[in-house]
């Protein structure tokens, strides 16, 4: 029966682990001497391959050293009676020094966070069974330092640098007027067709630029597309109604539409009463837009921009009113409603791609093309990961480990 000793040591270890406190070496000896005399007299084999190195933490003041080892042959195998490991630290190779901590069996790592920076230490690790300590494994000297680089995050940094380099390069190329290819987004054809249909029917076009603020990139993208739509309606002299939920967005929309009508050569067809501020409140805005749909019966409803829960209220009423509906948003949670209730939906990034396609603005082109090629690189990395898995190339996978 080894129970009393076992219980004592187990308790000691639990205390040490829970409190993460420094345990004085004397206490350990004391507990060991108190243990049951009839117990095991064969000490376990010591842990192997002990190593220690500077641990680079989040705020690295150089007081942490990470100690690791391979399990003692008696831990999980052999006599299978190892209860834990006692880790000690000294400033001379032969002295045993102070206890750093005690960890339970099966553990192969401990971070000592009490080191004095730039002091060389020797670490000694002993396996503990119910009563005996193994011979110590010793490693040293090692010292803690403050680091200027977090190696676990090198992969993050490299990918970030590559991505940003691409974004900046493409932006500059676009600025210099290089012709960068973006495929035509099918949604644009759908928008043009919807506007054409409204013209045939002699009914207005309704364009809702979302309820985002003016600094929301979806709103900005939407205003670019609004300019395109306004040019078409100006040409066909079809009324264009633009309800907004933000006063600033309304003045921006006024500018955009007025300019588009002037560019299309129909400045007189511009009707300022059709650019309307309805309400800042989400549901009140939706109710007011629904009112427009039912009273003024637009034949084409275009919802492009940032939408939240009101997307459902708008798309459902528009569907019932029998209008052709085209939507576009990067709010992923609203896409299901638009996809089901609208005739065509620009999903997620397609909204940005459409605005970049139409405006050719360098900053939009830059991030779109940069993201594009980063996606290609992502696919390549995923493929490499799969191959690394197959051929057992662990270094590749480990390089991307961030924790």
């Amino acid at each position: 029966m080894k129970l009393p000793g076992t219980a004592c040591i187990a308790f000691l270890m639990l205390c040490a682990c829970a409190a993460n406190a420094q345990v004085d070496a004397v206490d350990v000896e004391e507990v060991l001497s108190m243990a049951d005399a009839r117990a095991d007299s064969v000490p376990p084999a010591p842990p192997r391959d002990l190593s220690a190195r500077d641990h680079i933490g989040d705020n690295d003041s150089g007081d942490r050293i990470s100690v690791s080892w391979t399990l003692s042959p008696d831990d999980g195998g052999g006599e299978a009676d190892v209860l834990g490991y006692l880790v000690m630290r000294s400033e001379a190779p032969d002295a045993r020094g102070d206890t750093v901590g005690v960890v339970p069996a099966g553990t192969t790592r401990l971070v000592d966070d009490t080191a004095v920076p730039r002091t060389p230490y020797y670490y000694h690790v002993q396996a503990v069974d119910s009563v005996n300590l193994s011979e110590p494994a010793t490693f040293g000297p090692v010292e803690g330092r403050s680091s200027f680089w977090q190696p676990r995050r090198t992969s993050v940094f490299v990918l970030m640098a590559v991505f940003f380099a691409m974004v900046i390069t493409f932006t500059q190329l676009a600025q210099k007027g290089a012709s960068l290819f973006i495929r035509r987004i099918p949604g644009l054809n759908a928008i043009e067709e919807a506007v054409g249909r409204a013209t045939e029917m002699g009914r207005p076009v309704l364009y809702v630029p979302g309820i985002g603020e003016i600094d929301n990139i979806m709103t900005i993208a939407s205003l670019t597309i609004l300019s395109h739509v306004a040019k078409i309606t100006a040409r066909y002299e079809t009324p264009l109604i633009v309800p907004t939920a933000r006063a600033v967005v309304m003045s921006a929309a006024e500018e955009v539409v007025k300019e588009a009508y002037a560019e299309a050569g129909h400045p007189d067809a511009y009707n300022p009463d059709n650019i309307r501020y309805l309400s800042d409140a989400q549901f009140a805005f939706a109710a007011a837009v629904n009112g427009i749909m039912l009273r003024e019966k637009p034949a084409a409803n275009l919802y492009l921009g940032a939408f939240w829960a009101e997307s459902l209220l708008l798309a459902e009423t528009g569907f019932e009113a029998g209008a052709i509906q085209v939507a576009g948003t990067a709010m992923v949670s609203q896409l299901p409603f638009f996809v089901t209730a609208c005739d065509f939906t620009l999903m997620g990034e397609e909204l940005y791609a459409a605005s970049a396609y139409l405006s050719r603005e360098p900053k939009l082109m830059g991030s779109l093309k940069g993201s594009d090629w980063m996606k290609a690189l992502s696919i390549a990395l995923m493929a490499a990961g799969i191959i690394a898995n197959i051929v057992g190339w662990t270094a590749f996978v480990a390089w991307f480990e961030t924790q």
Partner: protein
Amino acid sequence: MRRQIPLMLCFIAGVFTAVQYFIPHPAIQDFQERFLAWLMTLLAFAFLLGTVSLIRLHWHKIRNKADDRGYSFVALAGLLVMIGFGFFHPAHHSPGSPFNTLFQNVQVPIEATMFSLLAFYIASAAFRAFRARTMEATLLLVAATIVMLGRVPLGELIHEQIPIATRWILEVPNMASKRGIMIGVGLGMMATALKIVLGIERAWMGGGD
């Protein structure tokens, strides 16, 4: 100058917070710790900007004798009452204070009810708008129906495979497609952040000189 200095501050702050992630040295991290507190302070003040704008909006409506100015009075009265109880009632901190009572019995019921309106609209949309018109719409409807069945106990009673099918939809096709969206949106977020830090994207500064 009026545009250069804020752009420079934006650049310095952005480069610092981005780069500190890779530098664990205490010289950087101790400053980062303080800078985070600054950002929290700025956020607190920035949030309250919205309250000032709200007061201005309703004050203008009342002063210009807008048709619906009665509701502006309601909004301002609600604001003033909360401020009064929140700052001048001695027990504003305790759970039973008038301030907390108003929150629990005015704000909570109204806000909670607003979004529950959508339960009705989603049912009506299911009936009137969700049609298997195209292959895409059909797939969406079938997946939605299985998930709807698999997430309620009654669906589990109908057939034992339904919850398993639901789990499969969530953890295989849903996960793959959401991962794709997540990566794309993530790249867009980073590109936007980069453009803000470099001063290419300046919408935050607003117009004017």
